[in-house]
């Protein structure tokens, strides 16, 4: 059976340090404004009592990628073997339709190359048995690649606050939400 690879982002472990984002940027030598993975602050009342919470997101390698549907030149393919959504920059004409279509705003326009750019789940690394940069460089080991056809981890969600409705494109990314701890705050 073909694989269905997706990110599993453990928000409980994430400390919002941005190492995933910057190591990806460093490895792929991306332009300053370009990010294939970003870390965003979540509402501080996420679990009830105030906390500092962050979520790290990249391309969600959706089951029904809106980018692929929107692209007029067929620059997007969803790999049969593992479901990774690959953007072919050679074919890209920079029309930005994909960026508008993606409910997560993942494909980003690179004004220097005049092309779109997005996370490839480091498929060339996966193909040689290495894990994606963000996975292997997160100091908290908060990002994993899971074959969701093989494992269905319990207690995960595909929706976090500020995130688009997963019923649109069926993103493969799953999240582990933080568990609220006890807090004794001064009055």
């Amino acid at each position: 059976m073909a694989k269905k690879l997706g990110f599993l982002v453990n928000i409980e472990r994430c400390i919002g340090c941005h190492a995933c984002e910057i190591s990806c940027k460093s490895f792929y030598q991306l332009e300053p404004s370009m990010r294939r993975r970003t870390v965003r602050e979540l509402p501080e009342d996420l679990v009830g009592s105030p906390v500092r919470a962050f979520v790290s997101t990249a391309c969600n390698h959706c089951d029904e990628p809106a980018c692929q549907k929107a692209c007029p030149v067929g620059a997007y393919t969803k790999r049969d073997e593992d479901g990774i959504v690959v953007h072919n920059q050679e074919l890209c004409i920079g029309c930005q339709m994909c960026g508008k279509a993606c409910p997560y705003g993942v494909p980003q326009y690179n004004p220097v190359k005049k092309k779109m750019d997005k996370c490839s789940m480091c498929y060339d690394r996966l193909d040689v048995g290495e894990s994606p940069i963000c996975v292997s460089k997160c100091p908290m080991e908060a990002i994993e690649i899971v074959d969701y056809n093989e494992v269905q981890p319990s207690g995960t969600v595909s929706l976090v606050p500020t995130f688009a409705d997963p019923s649109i494109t069926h993103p493969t990314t799953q999240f582990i939400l933080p568990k609220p701890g006890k807090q004794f705050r001064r009055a």
Partner: protein
Amino acid sequence: MLADNVSRRTFLKGSAALSTLLGLGAIGSKATNGLVPTAAAKSNSQKQQFFNACPRNCYDTCSIVTTVEDGRITFVTGNENNHYTKGRLCVKGNTYPRIVYSPDRIKYPMRQKGRGSGNWERISWDEAYTIIAKKMLDIKKEYGNTLPICLNKYSGNFNILNYATEGMLSSIGFTTRAQGTPCDPAGSDAQAFDMGTAYNNDPEQFMDAEYIILWGANPAWTSAHSMYFIEQAKEKGTKLVVIDPLITQTASKADEYIQIKPSTDGALALGMIRYIMDQHLYDEEWVNNHAIGFHEFVSYVKKNITVEWAAEKTGVPKPVIERIAREYATSKPANIWIGFGMQRHTNGGSMVRAIDALAALTSNIGKKGGGVNYIGGETWGFNYHTMSFGAPEGTEGEADRYVNMNNFGAQVLDAQDPPIKMMWIACRNPIAQDPEPNVVKKAFDQMDLIVTADLYMNQTVEYSDIVLPVTTPFETVGINVSYWHYWMNANEQAIKPLYETKSDLEIAMGLSKKLNELEAGSCTFPVSGNLVEWVEKEFNDDIRKLFGVKSWDELRKNGGTVKASEKVTVAWEDLKFRTPSGKYEFFSKKAVEYGHHPLPVFIEEYKANNEYPIRCISPHWKLGIHSQFQHIDWLGAIQDHPFVEMHPDLAKKYSIRENDMVNVRNEAGYLTLPAKLTKTVPVDTVVMYEGWWKDVHYTENFNVKALPSDMGDYSKGQRGIAFHDNFVKIEKA
């Protein structure tokens, strides 16, 4: 276009005229360092990997793997051979390629015409050495000694070879030194009184703990690699308690977070101790056999401390204190990590002593996975060969003179007989990092010559006469250890130094050479030497035995990193304390010698006055280490301006909304920055993060007074700074 033949004659006319005018040979002649015929083919195009060591003032002190292609760095990441770094760097470490290759590095020695004018002229290294050496010799002639020369160097780079700067100055005679550290002195003294020295368990042992209290520590921001072990422990069932005035990133991950009134941590520890004593939850055998002064301590506690009092004092409810006390006392091993933040108070040292006592009477000291962990120095036993050359023969005087680094400006201005006339600044940015920067500037004004060695333009360089360009870790050789974990990391030279940058050690050799040229015998520091030979001289038998590695070369050939013998990774496992009694000292005569109460007592906290009612805490920021990193644009893309955090209820009182500009002011100064409203800070406290100087004309230190903490003189020579006993008023700007 080039169809017509070059008229050689005419060409020579114009160019020759220019060459004659400039008094130089024609371009292309050997007179310049421009293009030259290609040397024999070099095969440097293959991918190479080098081991480097992050030398910053950081718990994590990572081992780095650097990928070099065509002689340039293409990727920098963590070394997997180091089980603490685990092949992963923090966000800051990931920016190293940018730090090396930003076009904005300081490239050449330069001299400023008019301090602060921004009018810089480029000078050669020889000119720089000459100006500096002549000034040093003039000073020696005029004053009969070199005490008017002052060194202010500290933690910007902890490569052991960087002690060459200290060594170079010791090699010309006795000088004035900025002594102490703004960081840890109160806590370090407290542990020195209690146990003889500060000595922490291996942070990888968080995995072995049954119970963890992070007390005023925020490793999620300041020690991401430790946070990994803590999170892993938590996931396998260890309870994580965080005690902090702020709901930090770390507190956000706690099983239980306890918000404490700032500067009352000692009261909480004593309240817990009272409960533990009352309930007989302490280890009687341990306190009888391995400690002195326990009975005196019991009388103090029984007479002065109640849990009710502690609850009142700390704002933590009595049942919570009791429950935490019981849980801590009955979990074995239980691990406490005391952060540097909680001792930055006028009663900080005494509070650390109380927490130490809590760990001692529950016999959590000397246990793997336990401990009362603060800082350690067991792996730092190098030769410090660079500091070993001594003053030249016939030097007058007996010793260096010290000024307090934590009140630097004022003490430099006060220094007399002789006054201070020249300053050498390395691995520091005092104008951004010192309290009361305006006083520091006044001290600078009094100098004849200010020399600063640095990587990037900053406020201190702006105010210097000469700037010397220094290397990044990737362009030099070194050896690094941590004050927290137990690894030793080799630092190989991965690339050629860019431009005319030099390491502090090379600068020391160059200056010594010039001094000796101008006055033979005026400096004992070696005038030449190979960097690898220098680093090999740092190894001695103790280091070899501790790490099981023969030499730096062996270390770099075998993975670039090695962990110290397991024996030293459990602090005080043999229970042979380095106190005068050899035991744990609840009652410390040494403390009395330094003017303190012999017991871990509660000292009243520093209080706000009516005019400045709001406490202003300035903790460490996640995208920087002190004044380093936050100015790097990769991180600027994440956060590009400083801010002040305040509780929405406090903001409402002053009609302040999110992002409104706020004036934060007290007697020392003021700054204006946007508000970030958050319930993660208490209602009577505002928070500004430390070290921000990019694109603003202030630092958070503008309203930090040089208020000393209670301890530090014993182990560090000087007390620390009560950074967090800073009170301000705020208004909407």
